[in-house]
């Protein structure tokens, strides 16, 4: 589903992403971990065609991110960091707008909105303006937005950031429940989350991939502790 080849990006003198390559199949949930500023978000943004890579390419759902950005975006559900949303809109009108943009036909519109509202349990806040919602609900709206038109690829940038433990669990359950038919990339810096949701994980530090395996393997190599392992590989580079 996703095939990343030698992707790199620099901002002036800073190399944000340096020669990153990996592949993801359908059914994979890829955990993207690394310290802050390691290049997770930049990589995801490039995959979502928000910024152009300086070098390398990636194929998403068979479309090249440089040449066919629009098709790529059709096949991706993207949830940005901090889940920015149009605060003055109501949940329903916001989802309607997303349906419009993602070309959900008029007939299927109600069904589709009902589906994502169901997945994210947003029934009660349909007509509430988004800015009045709690953080948990905002995240769910952000997620619902990414699910509209059922894209085959989901890219979620820190989906559980700032939620309470219950809400975190809810979001993780949602992700695992959808994993079968999709390729999902989740970025996080919470290590338990990796084990709970992902079947693959990539550790990224200073723009390059330092490890690519499963969370279970990490635990093994870290002597039973993922934290230890994470510390080793990210600090060890220094």
């Amino acid at each position, binding site marked *: 589903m996703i095939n990343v080849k030698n992707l790199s990006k620099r901002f002036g003198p800073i190399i944000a992403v340096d020669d990153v390559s990996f592949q993801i199949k359908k059914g994979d949930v890829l955990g993207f971990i690394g310290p802050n500023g390691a290049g997770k978000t930049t990589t995801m943004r490039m995959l979502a*065609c928000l910024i152009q890579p300086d070098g390398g390419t990636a194929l998403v759902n068979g479309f090249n991110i440089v040449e066919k950005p*629009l098709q790529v975006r059709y096949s991706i559900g*993207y949830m*940005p960091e901090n889940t920015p949303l*149009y*605060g003055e809109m109501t949940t329903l009108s916001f989802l309607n707008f997303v349906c*419009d*943009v*993602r*070309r959900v036909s008029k007939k299927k519109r109600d069904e589709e909105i009902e589906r994502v509202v169901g997945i994210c349990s947003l029934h009660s806040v349909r007509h509430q303006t988004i800015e009045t919602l709690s953080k948990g609900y905002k995240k769910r709206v952000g997620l619902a937005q990414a699910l509209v038109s059922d894209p085959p690829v989901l890219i979620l940038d820190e989906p559980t950031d700032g939620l309470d433990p219950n809400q975190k669990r809810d979001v993780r359950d949602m992700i695992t429940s959808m994993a079968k038919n999709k390729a999902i990339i989740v970025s996080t810096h919470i290590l338990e989350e990796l084990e709970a949701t992902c079947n693959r994980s990539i550790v990224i530090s200073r723009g390059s991939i330092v490890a690519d395996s499963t969370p279970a393997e990490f635990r093994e190599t870290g002597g039973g502790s993922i934290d230890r392992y994470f510390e080793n590989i990210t600090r060890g580079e220094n």
Partner: protein
Amino acid sequence: MHTIAAVMKRELKAYFSTPVAYVLLFVFLFFASFLTFRGRYFEVRQADLRIFFDMLPMLFIFLAPAIGMRLWSEERKTGTIELLFSMPVTVKQAVIGKYLAAWIFIGVALLLTFPLVITTNYLGNPDNFVIFTGYLGAFLLSGCYLVISIFCSSITSSQVISFIVSVMVCSIFVFADYPSMLNVLQTFLPAAMVEAVENMSFVVHFESIRRGVLEFRDISFYLLFITGWIAATCLMINERREA
């Protein structure tokens, strides 16, 4: 087209779901009639809207930036610009959609000045064709102010800065045909250039259309002007959308 319409619809909804829009409309309508009456509308006793159209270019200097300032600045500030462009929306579609929404908003504001038309028709027998072309001209004119405002909005995430800058730029184009302005330009530009600059003035191009004469060069000026600034806005957004 579909996407442009979607963006436009969202922006329009956004306008009318905040009190700011209603306040703006209220203020505009109040001043539109107030300034018309202060311009001796009832004393001159002529059944036309000359006085109204005379003061519109001044009123637009403030109205259009106030309407246009939030278009991109707000997206930048709240980060929704990232959300917007992660969806299958191109920069061009987004810019045009937002621009059209704001333009329609101004159009609505202009339409709501209809009591003046009714008053004039009640009091005398105006040439309603001329009033119609006057409104058409005013709408095109407002489009020029607005396209400047949307550009200024795209360069900064602060609505206040966006407002101030666009008021300044709009004023330049309004006053482009003032002799004092031309006199300054004349000191370092050749005569043909001075004339070309004079030709950029909004007011010069508004002149004949509001008298009831549709001229190709006025219409083409408005359309080219708007297209040019739209292109510039697209460039700005394209290069700075991640910021």
